């Protein structure tokens, strides 16, 4: 009898084309998602006289460099050139491209699942570190660099060294006001920004199983902020119900075959992971970051930590530097930190569940600082409008914008000014991430909406939400 296997092991094994030395394998790639930031790889491919091996497994959209203000897709000729180049390359190679003006266009990690491209049991890559988002469906999905993008375009494969496995189990019911973003921030705070390096994570436990697909994607999305290239969740009825009927999902006679395969994917009882981590849902509170690494996360009820209490000199120095950059003093209650603007969006938190959660807080209140809501795709924008969420946001004084990466990436012209403090639902609070000198506090959509209506970091539970 063979040993019980993890889901990761099953997917990995099914995709090995050839074994190489030193634990390397040539892995077959079922889906390759592309965006305008990866056009350099197309250029190199063209110059080497090579063509895209499997255009039918490659899909493209524009998200990173587009402006999200209505009517003006790009800010300058340089970025316009990148978007146009993507259009030319994909047309030339026969790749389906969700272009500017197409309502299906949106953030690459939002539209893959939305179109039914992201399904269990597949390997999926994209030239973007947040590709683990797709692991929420029980896929092996990970971010790659530009050279690897070119390699996949040319060969539909990648040489990979098999990572170790880590299971993070979260058990119990989340308290009122606590959601998926708080869960993943708590996980990163626990294992550290480098805790998942060289690991593929599987998120498990009753808390995770109880989440919607939108919530599961929020969790998997930030795996890279814990150092892990891939994060995944076992597919179940919630997963299958989400996928069925999506435009590019398996249909007809393919559906029952896919379903049979997917149901056999979850890790088997007794499967051994290289590392196990446990969290109790009851210990997780609404969480915000205070520093310049996603691991710098604490409950909103806590105070800014004191570097003097840290014994390790490297950690003390890093914390001192982070607090100086953030303009915060040790001991200050986090709920006293004033913010200058609010950003609700990004591949972490721009899906319909996220917008609903923010709208519940915004309803009947007024923002006191500039606040943006940027839906993840044109279709999410439409769906939100059909529910009247746009009216809730507009009535409360939020800006209701077009789909894109916007203020998460700091490369499209939508940035905060130096010294400005942003309550943000994005994934990175790095120095300069949202603009040179900008200060980012990461939090959930409900918490960001709470900050928008109070002008400071606020425990959303105090607003009765």
């Amino acid at each position: 009898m063979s040993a019980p296997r993890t889901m990761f092991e099953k997917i990995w094994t099914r995709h090995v084309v050839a074994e190489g030395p030193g634990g390397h394998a040539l892995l077959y790639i079922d889906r390759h998602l592309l965006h305008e930031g990866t056009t350099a790889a197309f250029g190199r491919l063209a110059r080497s006289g090579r063509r895209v091996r499997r255009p039918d497994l490659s899909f493209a959209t524009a998200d990173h460099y587009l402006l999200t203000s209505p009517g003006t897709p790009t800010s300058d000729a340089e970025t316009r050139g990148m978007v146009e180049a993507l259009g030319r390359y994909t047309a030339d190679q026969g790749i389906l491209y969700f272009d500017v003006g197409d309502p299906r266009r949106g953030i690459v990690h939002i539209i893959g699942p939305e179109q039914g491209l992201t399904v269990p049991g597949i390997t999926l890559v994209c030239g973007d570190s947040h590709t683990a988002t797709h692991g929420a469906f029980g896929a092996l999905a990970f971010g790659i660099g530009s050279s690897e993008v070119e390699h996949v375009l040319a060969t539909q494969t990648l040489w990979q060294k098999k990572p170790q496995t880590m299971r993070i189990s979260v058990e119990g019911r989340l308290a009122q006001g606590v959601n998926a973003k708080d869960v993943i921030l708590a996980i990163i705070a626990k294992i550290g920004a480098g805790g998942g390096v060289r690991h593929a994570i599987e998120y498990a436990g009753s808390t995770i199983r109880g989440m919607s697909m939108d919530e599961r994607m929020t969790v998997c999305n930030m795996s890279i902020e814990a150092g892990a290239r891939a994060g995944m969740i076992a597919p179940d009825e919630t997963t299958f119900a989400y996928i069925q009927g999506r435009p590019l999902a398996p249909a007809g006679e393919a559906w029952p075959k896919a379903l049979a395969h997917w149901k056999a994917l979850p890790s088997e009882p007794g499967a051994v992971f290289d590392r196990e981590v446990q969290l109790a849902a009851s210990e997780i509170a609404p969480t915000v970051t205070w520093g310049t690494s996603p691991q710098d996360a604490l409950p909103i009820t806590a105070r800014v930590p004191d570097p003097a209490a840290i014994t390790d000199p490297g950690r003390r120095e890093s914390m001192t530097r982070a607090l100086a950059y953030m303009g915060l003093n040790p001991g200050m209650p986090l709920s006293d930190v004033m913010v200058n603007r609010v950003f609700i969006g990004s591949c972490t938190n721009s899906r319909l569940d996220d917008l609903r959660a923010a709208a519940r807080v915004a309803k009947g209140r007024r923002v006191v600082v500039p606040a943006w809501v940027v839906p993840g795709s044109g279709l999410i924008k439409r769906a939100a409008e059909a529910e009247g969420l746009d009216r809730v946001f507009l009535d409360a004084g939020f800006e209701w914008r077009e789909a894109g990466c916007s203020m998460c990436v700091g490369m499209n012209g939508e940035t905060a000014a130096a010294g400005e403090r942003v309550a943000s639902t994005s994934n990175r609070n790095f120095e300069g991430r949202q603009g040179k000198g900008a200060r980012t506090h990461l939090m959930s959509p409900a918490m960001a909406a709470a900050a928008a209506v109070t002008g400071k970091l606020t425990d959303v539970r105090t607003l009765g939400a």
Partner: protein
Amino acid sequence: MEPFTRVTAVGLPIDLLNVDTDRVIPARFLRKDRNVPDYARYLFHDVRFDAAGAERPEFILNQTPYRAARIVVAAENFGCGSSREAAVWVLAANGFRSVIAQSLGDIFHQNCFKNGLLPVILPAEAVAGLRRQLHERPGATLTVDLETQTVTAPDGAQHRFEVDAFRKEMLLTGRDEIGLTLGFESKIVEFEARHAREMAWTVPPRPGT
């Protein structure tokens, strides 16, 4: 790709933990072609230069003995965050050939191999010792030897490191990885045929069909 065999060069100690690739090269420079004349200046740009573009003297790369550095000696989780390969390109544009740390961001780690930079993982105490020596003797050199898989510290101590046989061979020969993989064409074709038989549902339907 430029092969890597053995490099002896000044080491640049970077003590900060979790140095992310946004810090290595800010996002607004990612649109730039790596052949533009000023490309090398984008490395650590926002901590290396002030608002007027002048060097910040307190930043280590702006201090004379370290200007010749070609080996980074970092701390935990250097190169975390964004997948931007430009973080490696901009290190290479400044002459860097190797990054030594106790751990590296996974995607950065992989990107190094594709550009002739050798990522070296050593135990935390060994890396801290190297950084200490480089601070105490600015401009001190170390040697990274891929064939023998050793780092020789300024004080002469040798540290052996592990490197995957596959990556070692690729770096020593400077071989084009895509070219190598295209040599597996028959294996890929064979795999695709089996995949199409057993897991046909992995190919999405074409829109409108």
